[in-house]
């Protein structure tokens, strides 16, 4: 077994970075100890073999092509980055306006609903679609709701006029065809 001291310092000894004092002690041990000598020789041979391992040169054409490829990739990425930055900055401007636009749109819709229905609040929901072809009018249906719905879409759906005159709890069946009701009230 080589001395621990040798194992620790072989690296520095072979690299030439060992201190003079350590070097003297190191060589003293080497002179006396066969295992340590063998250990250092093996380490030296391994390093020499590793350094000898020349990698195959792919050639000048490869190096030129590699350079071009790297540069074109970085230019492409830089262009993509600047494009993304432009989009982000444009978006951030729109983000700033978005709440204001939403508020304005809400106010316009609210004013329009008051103008159409003449009420300051939307009527409660009183009807529900059971299937695509069936509408149930619940017992506490209010005529005002039906009228408000009617006023907004009656031009297209004549079915709503039937709902207005239907008794509470009545069920309308049939196909909902804009402008016509194909069957009657149950």
């Amino acid at each position: 077994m080589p001395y621990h001291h040798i194992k620790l310092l072989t690296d520095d000894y072979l690299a030439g970075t060992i201190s003079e004092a350590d070097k003297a002690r190191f060589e003293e041990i080497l002179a006396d100890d066969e295992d340590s000598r063998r250990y250092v020789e093996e380490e030296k041979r391994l390093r020499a073999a590793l350094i000898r391992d020349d990698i195959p040169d792919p050639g000048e054409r490869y190096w030129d092509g590699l350079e071009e490829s790297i540069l074109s990739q970085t230019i492409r990425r830089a262009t993509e980055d600047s494009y993304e930055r432009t989009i982000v900055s444009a978006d951030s401007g729109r983000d700033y306006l978005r709440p204001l636009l939403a508020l304005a749109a809400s106010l316009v819709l609210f004013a329009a609903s008051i103008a159409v229905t003449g009420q300051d609040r939307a009527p409660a929901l009183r009807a529900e679609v059971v299937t695509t072809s069936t509408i149930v009018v619940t017992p506490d249906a209010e005529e005002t709701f039906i009228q408000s719905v009617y006023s907004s879409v009656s031009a297209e759906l004549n079915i709503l006029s039937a709902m207005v005159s239907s008794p509470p709890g009545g069920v309308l069946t049939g196909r909902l065809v804009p402008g016509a009701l194909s069957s009657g009230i149950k």
Partner: protein
Amino acid sequence: MKTELQDLVERFIGGDQQAFAELVRRYKKRIYSIAFRMLGNHLDADEVTQEAFVRIYTKRKSIKSASFFSSLLLRIATNYAIDLIRKKQKRFVSLDSETGATEAVQLEMSDARTSPERILENAELMDEIRRAIQKLPPRQRAAIVLHDVEGYTKPEVAVIMRCPQATVRSNLHIARSKLKKWLSKII
């Protein structure tokens, strides 16, 4: 006084494409060499080299000094190579488990092929050394390639691999012990 390299790196950080082209010219062979030694083939070495430069380009704002440029470039390349090795190992492990072959068996097969006649040829010797390096775990491989082959000092390897010097020492020690054992017939 500013060195030429400092000037180049500063221009590169500022986005100068010509400075970057010059840095690629200076460092491409070194990066390729480290990658080739770690991965053992041209295709992977090419991938690592290209990716290392593209990544350092995108990280250029974080470079604080000229000396940090080469450390960062080597770190990116080494880490990318380590990731690639791990990905490949996962693939090979799953293949090995399917065929029942283990690393030990493969090692013996490799040793059996090593006849005295063959190892006299330099190319074969190099092949054996490369094969042995390829059998090391990724971080030991990186330490051996950077320190013993490429000649970086331990503090430099520690910076590149982002680990204490003691870890570099132990990686080197274990890797060399394995290499000596595997290559005992030819060195």
